[in-house]
C-alpha cells in the first residue's frame, strides 16, 4: 500500500515528522518498507523576483535578468518570453540539481554571466511539457523559500508492507484511522456532498443479484450528461504520487476513492449496457470474455461476472470489460460499488493470473458497510469534476445483510496473556479509540462490538492483540517464564548425528549442503538399472526448473556435481561429505520415507602435498579408512566388505558393499569411469555412502574395557608369496584361526608386486606381536605358536614363505 504524508495529514492533524510517522506506523504493525521524499532534493530552487529584464546584447532570443533571491541580486540569462520585470519566478541557484541529472553551474552565455536558471514546470519535473517558465503568484512566499515548499509540493511517499489481516488499511483512511487511534487524535473523513437530480435512479438502471452467496451486496448510481476529460492537476498529481497513471476524470475518481476508502469501484458506460441493467451471476462454463487489458479470458462456472441484459460486462471484483469501458464520448455512467466474497475472487484471480488493485482488496475482504459511503464519495466527485446530473437515490441490493456480533471480552485475560497490568478504564479507552463499542457484561467481562471496517476482529484474542498493539509492544516487560523442569536429553539419533558430523570434520572433510531436489536424469547418470528403486522419485508439481524437479533418492549426484564444480575452479584436493535426507516413496503409503544418509567423496592429493610430504594421490584405502573410523567410533564390529552385488556407479574391481551381518549398511569405492564422465569429472574420485538409520541401530554405546598387560611383548614377522586372487583378509583370518590369546596384534606392513615376485602372485609381509596377560613368554613358547601359524598358512592357504 502506498500513501503519502500530506494525504494522511488531510485526515489526521498529527505533528510527527515523516521519520517519526514511519516509526509510529511500523510499531503499529503497518511496516514502512520504503520512504521516498518528493521535492526534498529541490531546495536549491527558490522563490525569486525579476527586478530587471533586458535584451541580451549578443542574442535576439535571450534576455539578461537581475534576479533577487532575498539574499542577493544575481545575473541570470533566460530564453523564455512569457514573463516580465517584477514577476515572481522559480530560480534554480548555482549548485541545484534538476531532474535528469541537470546541474546548475555558473556560466557565460554569449558573453553574459549567468548565475542560475529560471525554471519551467518541465525542468522541475512537474509536467511532461511546458511552454515558458513558471510564473508564481506574487506573494506566494518570502523570497528564497524553496519553490516546492511554496507550492506545497513537498511530500513523503510511504510504502507500507501490509499483513494479509489488515485489509482495512488498504486505504489512506484506514492508515489514518490507526494513526488517530494511536495518537488519540480526531479523524476527519473526506467530504461527501451529494447533490442529486430529480429523476429516480430506478427509472434509468436496475440491478439483480443471481448469486447472493458470492455477491451479498451490490450498489449502483447513475450519472447522466457528464463530460469525460483529463483530470485536474491535483488529482493527476495525487495518483502519480501513489503510482497510478491518470486516464480520465471518471476513471481517476474511481481509482482515487479506492485508494482513499479501500472500496474498489467500477464505472460503466451506460450506453453500452444493454437494457441499462446489471445482472450479477456466475459465468457459464467456457464463456468467453474480453477484459479491459484486451485479453480474451475463458471463464468457468466458479467465476462471478457482472452482466448487462445480454452479456458479461465485467469480471466481478477483478477487471472491467472492454465492451463497456469509459471512453471520451461517454456521457452516462453506471457507477458500481459492491462486495464480493474473498475466496471466490481469489480463486478466479489466481486461475487467470490476473492480480489487480481491485482483486487484491476483495481477496482480503472489503468493508461491506462502507459500500455506500464510497459510491457517494465517488458520485459527488464525478459531478464536481465531470459535470452531469446524479440520479436521485442509490440502487442498493443487499441480500447478505447481517449484524456485527458483539464479542465477550475479559480484561483480566488480556492482562494475563500479554503480561501487563492495565486497568479497565485503560482497556476501555483503547478499545474506544479503535471505534469499538464497549458494554459491560457479566462477571467483569465486556461486550465489545468492533467497527464494521475491522473484519479481522472476530474473537476475544483478536481484541487482546489490539490492546497489546495499541498500548505498544514496547511497553510489555520482558520476563522469564516460570516453568516445570522437563527432563529431556538428545535422542540416540541426535547424539550420533552430532558425533558423526564432528568425526568426519575431524577426518579433514568439509561438510556440504546440496538442494534436496535434483534433475530427473540423475539416476541415469549413476547408471542405475531400469528397475532400481532409486529411479522411483517424488516429483514436484511446480518446479522452478527441470534440474530441481524431483526429490533426490541418493546423495551421490549432488556430491559428484559439487566435486565437478570445485575441480572447475582448480580446487583439486577435495574431501567432502554431506549428511542429509533422501526421499523414498513407500508403496501403498501417502507419506514417503525420509532417511538420513551420509555420503563422502575424496580426490586429489592425500594431504595436500607440500615440501614435507610425498605428494601421493588418495586411493580406495583412504576412503575405506574413513568408513572404518566411523564404524570403529560407534563400535560396530563384525563388518565384512563384500565385492558382489556392487552398486553400478563404482569401478567393479575397486569397490565393495559394507555388510553388518546380512545387512548392507553402505558402500565404498572408486567411481566408475563412465559415471565420472557423466558428471564431467576428469579425476579419479572415491566415494562412500552410509545408511544413517542402520548405523544408529548398530551403534553400541557400552564398551568393555580390558586392563593392559604388564608383561613384555615379542614380535615376529612373516613374509610370504600368495596368489593374486587370494584376499589378504583370508591370511589374517587364518592367523586369527589359531585362536591364541597371546596374539596381541596382527599388522600387514607390506603388500608388493613386481620385481622378484612371480607373475600372478603378491608378496605380503605380516607383523605379529605376542604378549601374555599372565607372564613373560619364553622364546620357546613364542616360536611354537609362530610355527603353528606358519603351518596353518602354508597348509591351508598354500602360501609360500619367502
Amino acid at each position, binding site marked *: 500500500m502506498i500513501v503519502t504524508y500530506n494525504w494522511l495529514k488531510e485526515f489526521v492533524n498529527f505533528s510527527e515528522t515523516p521519520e517519526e510517522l514511519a516509526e509510529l506506523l511500523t510499531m503499529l504493525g503497518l511496516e514502512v518498507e520504503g520512504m521516498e521524499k518528493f521535492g526534498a532534493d529541490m531546495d536549491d530552487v527558490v522563490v525569486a523576483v525579476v527586478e530587471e529584464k533586458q535584451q541580451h546584447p549578443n542574442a535576439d532570443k535571450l534576455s539578461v535578468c537581475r534576479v533577487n533571491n532575498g539574499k542577493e541580486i544575481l545575473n541570470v540569462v533566460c530564453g523564455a518570453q512569457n514573463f516580465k520585470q517584477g514577476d515572481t519566478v522559480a530560480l534554480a541557484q548555482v549548485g541545484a540539481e534538476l531532474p535528469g541529472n541537470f546541474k546548475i553551474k555558473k556560466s557565460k552565455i554569449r558573453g553574459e554571466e549567468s548565475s542560475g536558471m529560471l525554471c519551467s514546470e518541465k525542468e522541475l519535473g512537474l509536467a511532461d511539457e511546458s511552454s515558458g517558465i513558471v510564473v508564481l503568484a506574487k506573494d506566494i512566499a518570502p523570497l528564497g523559500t524553496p519553490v516546492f515548499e511554496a507550492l506545497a509540493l513537498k511530500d513523503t511517499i510511504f510504502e507500507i508492507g501490509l499483513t494479509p489481516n489488515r485489509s482495512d488499511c488498504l486505504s489512506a483512511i484506514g492508515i489514518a484511522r490507526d494513526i488517530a487511534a494511536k495518537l488519540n487524535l480526531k479523524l476527519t473523513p473526506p467530504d461527501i456532498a451529494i447533490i442529486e437530480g430529480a429523476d429516480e435512479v430506478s427509472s434509468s438502471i436496475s440491478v439483480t443479484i443471481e448469486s447472493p452467496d458470492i455477491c451479498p451486496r451490490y450498489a449502483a448510481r447513475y450519472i447522466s450528461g457528464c463530460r469525460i476529460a483529463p483530470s485536474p492537476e491535483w488529482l493527476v498529481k495525487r495518483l502519480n504520487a501513489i503510482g497510478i497513471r491518470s486516464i480520465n476524470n471518471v476513471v481517476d475518481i474511481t481509482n482515487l476513492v479506492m485508494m482513499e476508502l479501500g472500496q474498489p469501484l467500477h464505472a460503466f458506460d451506460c450506453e453500452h449496457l444493454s437494457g441499462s441493467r446489471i445482472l450479477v451471476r456466475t459465468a457459464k462454463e467456457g464463456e468467453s470474455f474480453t477484459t479491459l487489458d484486451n485479453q480474451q479470458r475463458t471463464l468457468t462456472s466458479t467465476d462471478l461476472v457482472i452482466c448487462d441484459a445480454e452479456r458479461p460486462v465485467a469480471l466481478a471484483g477483478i477487471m472491467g470489460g472492454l465492451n463497456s469501458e469509459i471512453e471520451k464520448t461517454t456521457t452516462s455512467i453506471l457507477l458500481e460499488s459492491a462486495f464480493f466474497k474473498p475466496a471466490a475472487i481469489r480463486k478466479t484471480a489466481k486461475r487467470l493470473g490476473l492480480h489487480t488493485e481491485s482483486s487484491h482488496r476483495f481477496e482480503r475482504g472489503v468493508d461491506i458497510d462502507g459500500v455506500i459511503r464510497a459510491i457517494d464519495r465517488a458520485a459527488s466527485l464525478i459531478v464536481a469534476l465531470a459535470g452531469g446530473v446524479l440520479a436521485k437515490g442509490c440502487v442498493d441490493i443487499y441480500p447478505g445483510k447481517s449484524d456485527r456480533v458483539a464479542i465477550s471480552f475479559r480484561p483480566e485475560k488480556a492482562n494475563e496473556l500479554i503480561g501487563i497490568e492495565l486497568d479497565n478504564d485503560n482497556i476501555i479507552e483503547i478499545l474506544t479509540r479503535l471505534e469499538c463499542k464497549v458494554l459491560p457484561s457479566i462477571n467483569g467481562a465486556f461486550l465489545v462490538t468492533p467497527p464494521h471496517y475491522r473484519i479481522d476482529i472476530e474473537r476475544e484474542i483478536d481484541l487482546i492483540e489490539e490492546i497489546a498493539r495499541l498500548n505498544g509492544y514496547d511497553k510489555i516487560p520482558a520476563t*522469564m517464564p516460570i516453568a516445570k523442569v522437563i527432563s529431556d536429553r538428545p535422542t540416540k539419533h541426535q547424539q550420533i548425528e552430532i558425533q558423526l558430523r564432528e568425526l568426519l570434520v575431524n577426518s579433514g572433510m568439509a561438510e556440504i549442503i546440496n538442494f534436496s*531436489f535434483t534433475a530427473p536424469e540423475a539416476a541415469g547418470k549413476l547408471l542405475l538399472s531400469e528397475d532400481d528403486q532409486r529411479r522411483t522419485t517424488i516429483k514436484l508439481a511446480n518446479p522452478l526448473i527441470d534440474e530441481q524437479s524431483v526429490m533426490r533418492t541418493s546423495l551421490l549426484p549432488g556430491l559428484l556435481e559439487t566435486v565437478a564444480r570445485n575441480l572447475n575452479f582448480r580446487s583439486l584436493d577435495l574431501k567432502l561429505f554431506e549428511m542429509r535426507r533422501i526421499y523414498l516413496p513407500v508403496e501403498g503409503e501417502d507419506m514417503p520415507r525420509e532417511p538420513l544418509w551420509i555420503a563422502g567423496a575424496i580426490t586429489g592429493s592425500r594431504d595436500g602435498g607440500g615440501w614435507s610430504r610425498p605428494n601421493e594421490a588418495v586411493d580406495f584405502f583412504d576412503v575405506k579408512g574413513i568408513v572404518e573410523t566411523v564404524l570403529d567410533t560407534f563400535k560396530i564390529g563384525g563388518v565384512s566388505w563384500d565385492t558382489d552385488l556392487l552398486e553400478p556407479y563404482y569401478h567393479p574391481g575397486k569397490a565393495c558393499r559394507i555388510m553388518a551381518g546380512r545387512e548392507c549398511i553402505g558402500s565404498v569405492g572408486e567411481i566408475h569411469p563412465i559415471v565420472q564422465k557423466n558428471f564431467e569429472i576428469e579425476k579419479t574420485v572415491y566415494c562412500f555412502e552410509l545408511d544413517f538409520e542402520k548405523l544408529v541401530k548398530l551403534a553400541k554405546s557400552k564398551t568393555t574395557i580390558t586392563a593392559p598387560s604388564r608383561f613384555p611383548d615379542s614380535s615376529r614377522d612373516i613374509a610370504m608369496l600368495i596368489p593374486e586372487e587370494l584376499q589378504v583378509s583370508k591370511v589374517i583370518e587364518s592367523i586369527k584361526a589359531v585362536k591364541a590369546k597371546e596374539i596381541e596384534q596382527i599388522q600387514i606392513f607390506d603388500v608388493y608386486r613386481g620385481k622378484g615376485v612371480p607373475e600372478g602372485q603378491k608378496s605380503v609381509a605380516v607383523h605379529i606381536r605376542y604378549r601374555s596377560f599372565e607372564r613373560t613368554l619364553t622364546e620357546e613358547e613364542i616360536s611354537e605358536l609362530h610355527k603353528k601359524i606358519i603351518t596353518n598358512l602354508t597348509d591351508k592357504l598354500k602360501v609360500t614363505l619367502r
Partner: protein
Amino acid sequence: MREQLEKLKNITLQAIKESSSLEELQEIRINLLGRKGELTALMKGLGLLEPAERPIVGQLVNSVRDEIETALAAATESANQKLIARRLQSEQIDTSLPGRHPLKGTKHPVSLVIEEICSIFAGLGFAVAEGPEIEHDWYNFEALNFPPEHPARDMQDTFFVEKSLLLRTHTSPVQIRTMLKQKPPIRIIAPGTVYRCDSDATHSPMFHQIEGLMVDTKVTFGDLKGILTVFTNQLFGQKTGVRLRPSYFPFTEPSAEVDIACVICGGKGCRVCKNSGWLEILGAGMVDPEVYRHVQYDAENISGFAFGMGIERIAMLKYGISDMRLLFENDIRFLRQF
C-alpha cells in the same frame, strides 16, 4: 717409587688436560687403570715392599688414583658437553618452513548456526524435535489456521507434490506434530529444511528454519519477549537491542516481528539494515487458540508462544555473507573459511 708415582701422576694429568675426545680419555683410563694399566701394575707391586712401607705407599697410590679419576671424570663431562654442543650446532633446521597440518575439515555454516542455536535453547530446557519435509497440507497450513483459499497462503510460495502433499514451507508443522504427540508442558526447538518456490540473491528455493514452541500454564507474551531477548543476546552478544513490533501470522496472536539492532552498524543505519538501524530476524507470537483447537488442547487453561527464524539469514549476518547462493554452491574455498 714415590718419585715414580709423582711422575706418573703429572704425565697423566697433563695428558688428560691435552686430550680432545672421549676416545682419548678412555685410552688414558685403560692405560693407567685397566687390568694391564701402569697404576694397576704399581698396585700389584706393593706386595714386594717392606711391610712397614706398604701402608704409606698404598695410601699414596690411592690418592694418586683418586686424583686422576677425578680429573678423568671432569674431563669426560666436559668432553661430553662439547660433543652435545657440537651436535646441537650442526643440527639446526629452518623453522620458518610451514608445519605438517592434520587436514582440517569444516562444518557447513548452516550446521554451525543450527548447533549454536540448539545449544542456547538446550540451556533453557528446550528439546530438539523433528518432522518430515514432505508434508501434508493439513499440518503445513490448515492446522496452523491457514484455511484453503486464505490470502495468508500467498505469504509462502509452495512447492506441491501430489494430492495433499507439499514440501513444507516452514518448520511450523513440527509444532502440530509435537502437540498431537504429547501434552503440555512443551518446550521444543525444531531445526529443519524448508522450501519455497522463489530464487534470487536473497531467496533460495531450499533453506532452513528453526522453530520454537513453549506451551505451559500462564505463559505470557512478556515471557516470549524475555526468552527471545536472552536468546538474541547470547547469539549476537549481550546488549544487542531487541524490539518486537506487531505483525501477523495465522497461527499466532498476538504476533510479532522481532528485530535486533543492526549488527553491522550498531543501529546507526547502513545498507544492510536499509538505514533503519534494525534487522528483522524472527517471527513470533502467542499460539493462536485455533491451533489449540486443531490439536485438541484446551485454550482456556494453557498458553504458549511460538517463534521461527531463518538460519541462512542469521548465518549471513553472523559471517557477513551477502549472497545466499554462496551457501549452497559448496565452493571449498568458501567452506574452508568456517
